[in-house]
């Protein structure tokens, strides 16, 4: 068993890191530990945020919240829901696909930049993050950003920490903006499109002044595994509209009319819409109790289906698309085929792939994050050193 440290305050965490620095004891930072399939870094002791718990400030009228990093996401979302507010970026819950238990924390959500379907119009977790407090690798307590919506005072370090996967510093507190929950939501479904047709339909929809807030394509192979099989037969291209009831119904009609030329159009009500988009967010069809390799691939919207089409000629893949086609959830049959996948990502114009799931030995042997071009990797190493010169914080992201 590797030792687990659970500092109860930011000061205690800072002291711990400073002392560890003296003996060069490396840490692996954990929040709720929901990515339990990932092997811990060699010899690293676990530094958990579990003791840094609680909402520090919540001002619904200003649409901002400050919470300690170890605060369970559920607690944050429950407090927001009481005021009919929400996180705009729809944090992903991968416990189903990862087969892990843990309780996701707000710090872990920002550390992984975990963002769901609304991300392609409302931004990712990093876009909601206004300010952070953290302990760097020297054991110093540092703050960056603040609690106001607009802030360009100095370098935007909060962006660097969002999505840093525990590689730069221990986040101790995050301040983020929230949004009012939409009064209602509906989904327009276009049935029977192939991946290329669906990509064209989604691009058309995004060019209309109807404010689509979700655009996904669920090919026939996965469609039945969504919404309890309630979607019409054939592949489903789904477009979400949210807002005031009166406005949503007007926009839904407009969108349905515009999509009629692509295929058969139907509509899901608010209840089904909520379920469907949660399942899309969490890649529910792949919560299949297996450890078959699962990739999350981000490319240009029109490139998603090109990538999958190219891969299909070479290997067995199952896939569905979110973010107008630009987010591909890709499940491989047995081998992750990392080299093949990355070659094709490059061929379709670039992007990145993260391996979320595979057998532990495969995970350990694969580059789970997208390798960077040499010059970018060098910058990344220099930035890592600027936060953590002693290399105390071990993470798969920066090695």
């Amino acid at each position, binding site marked *: 068993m590797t030792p687990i440290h659970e500092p109860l305050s930011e000061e205690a965490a800072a002291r711990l890191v400073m002392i560890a620095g003296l003996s060069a004891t490396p840490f692996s930072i954990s929040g709720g530990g929901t990515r339990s399939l990932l092997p811990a870094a060699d010899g690293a002791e676990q530094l958990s945020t579990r003791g840094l718990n609680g909402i520090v400030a919540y*001002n619904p009228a200003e649409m901002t919240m400050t919470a300690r990093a170890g605060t369970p996401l559920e607690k944050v979302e429950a407090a927001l829901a009481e005021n009919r507010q929400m996180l705009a970026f729809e944090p992903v819950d991968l416990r189903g696909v990862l087969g892990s238990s843990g309780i996701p924390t707000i710090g872990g959500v920002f550390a992984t930049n975990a963002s769901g379907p609304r991300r392609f119009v409302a931004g990712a977790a990093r876009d909601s993050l206004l300010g952070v407090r953290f302990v760097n690798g020297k054991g110093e307590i540092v703050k*960056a950003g603040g609690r106001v919506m607009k802030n*360009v005072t100095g*370098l935007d370090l909060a*962006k660097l920490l969002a999505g840093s996967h525990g590689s730069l510093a221990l986040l101790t507190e995050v301040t983020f903006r929230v949004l*009012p929950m939409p009064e209602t939501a509906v989904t327009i479904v276009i049935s029977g499109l192939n991946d290329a047709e669906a990509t064209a339909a989604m691009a058309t929809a995004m060019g209309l002044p109807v404010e689509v807030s979700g655009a996904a394509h669920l090919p026939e192979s996965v469609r039945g595994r969504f919404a309890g099989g309630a979607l019409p037969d054939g592949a489903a291209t789904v477009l979400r509209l949210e807002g005031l009831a009166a406005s949503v119904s007007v926009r839904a009609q407009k969108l349905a009319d515009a999509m009629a030329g692509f295929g058969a159009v139907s509509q899901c009500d608010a209840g089904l819409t909520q379920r469907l988009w949660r399942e899309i967010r969490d890649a529910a069809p792949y919560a299949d109790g297996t450890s078959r390799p699962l990739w999350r691939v981000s490319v*240009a919207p029109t490139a998603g289906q090109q990538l999958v089409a190219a891969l299909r000629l070479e290997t067995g893949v199952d896939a569905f698309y979110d973010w107008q086609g*630009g987010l591909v959830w890709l499940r491989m049959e047995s081998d992750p085929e990392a080299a093949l996948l990355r070659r094709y990502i490059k061929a379709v114009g670039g992007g990145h792939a993260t391996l979320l799931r595979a057998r532990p030995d495969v995970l350990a042997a694969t580059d789970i994050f997208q390798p960077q071009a040499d010059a970018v990797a060098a910058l990344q190493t220099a930035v890592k050193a600027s936060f953590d010169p002693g290399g105390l914080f071990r993470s798969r992201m920066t090695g």
Partner: protein
Amino acid sequence: MDQIAFLEPRPAVLSRRREIVADLLDLLPEGCLVHEPRELVPFETDAFVSYRRLPLAVALPETTQQVAAVLKYCHRYGVPVVPRGAGTSLAGGAIPQEDAVVIGLSKMAQILEVDFANRTATVQAGVTNLAISDAVSADGYFYAPDPSSQLACTIGGNIGMNSGGAHCLKYGVTTNNLLGVKLVLIDGTIVDLGGKALDAGGLDLLGVVCGGEGQLGIVTEATVRLVARPEGARPVLFGFDSSEEAGACVADVIGAGIIPVAIEFMDKPAIEICEAFAQAGYPMDVEALLIVEVEGSEAEMDAMLASIIEIAGRHGVKVVKECQSATEAALIWKGRKSAFGATGRIADYICMDGTVPLSQLPHVLRGTAEIVAKHGLRVANVFHAGDGNMHPLILFNANDPDDAARAEAAGNEILKLCVDAGGCLTGEHGVGIEKRDLMRHQYSEADLAQQMAVRAAFDPQWLLNPSKVFPLEGRPAA
């Protein structure tokens, strides 16, 4: 008025001026290097005109490769570099120094690609902000961040400052609409960060380059998000008896979960200045005015307006004026967007840019008025109220050194007031030199040291825009 210091020019660079100019002439095509002192004058300052420095030379490259060649040269010989777009910075971000080569992006002003299927535009850094929207508007799209200077300012400068604008309340600022850049590092290395894919792998370097104020590298190309233009948009004027009431109304609208596209604020002096300039039809018998813009279909706009009018009623709104035509709407925005220019015609001014939590708006407006009165000056307030981003324009006479010194002192006090109210020194204009020496009011030594360490990771010798953002004393040895 010359209190803000620049770094001492490096004698080793000044003494080699002629060789440097000769070398740069060799590196660049004809007509791409400005070095005659007389011709350097247009580059000696930006929109923060109280300070000026003649640069050593100005390079106006036409390609990324040329930018790389100049940077590589300057890196090799330890010559400071100041990146420049249109020079509209209000914080002195683009003001050069005597030993610096300015790299201006004005010759790199092409729109390289518009990709509607992926909703992106890829442009060279010297393209103006408005040119992007102009290029895509016939197809029903626009580029959302809209600084009032959008006719002149460049996308490279917008990225440098992470600029905002009136419509950012709904659509976000530059960083939220930027997908990728081509960046030339100080040693001449060219890197691509991000692209048409939403998430780039690895650390979010793009996130820190945006708002990096030209200290991390030179952006030569950018890929930005295009947004479908709404069906309709309508600005509505709300007049109030006091600034405090107007400020409280803004907080209540947002607090009620209503997010219009824009909520802009003007107090009486600002209304008078803008109306005289633009004849926008602003009501003249009110103390404060809100321009609230809603968008969508007619029905949606009506519904949102009804809720806003109800809230404004609770704050004793005196005038609600809906515009009747597209021409009227355009005039309303013309008045607002020419506020700085119009002010500049009646007096010299410095523009503050602190952001405060919305609940603090009335308090900070009152405090601002007191501070300015104490210094015997006048102020006009015109700003992005929906996100708490204040712009007090402190009016003074630049020919009177005492007046100017008092204006600067008043500005500093106002910014401290913003920080103490839970806000920050600058919401969209950047730190530049203007707010550099106030940074310690907002940040601790450890906070600043961490930022400077990240800066040094990109530019270990501190050659890029070195007099800006971080207080000159207490810097790490380069």
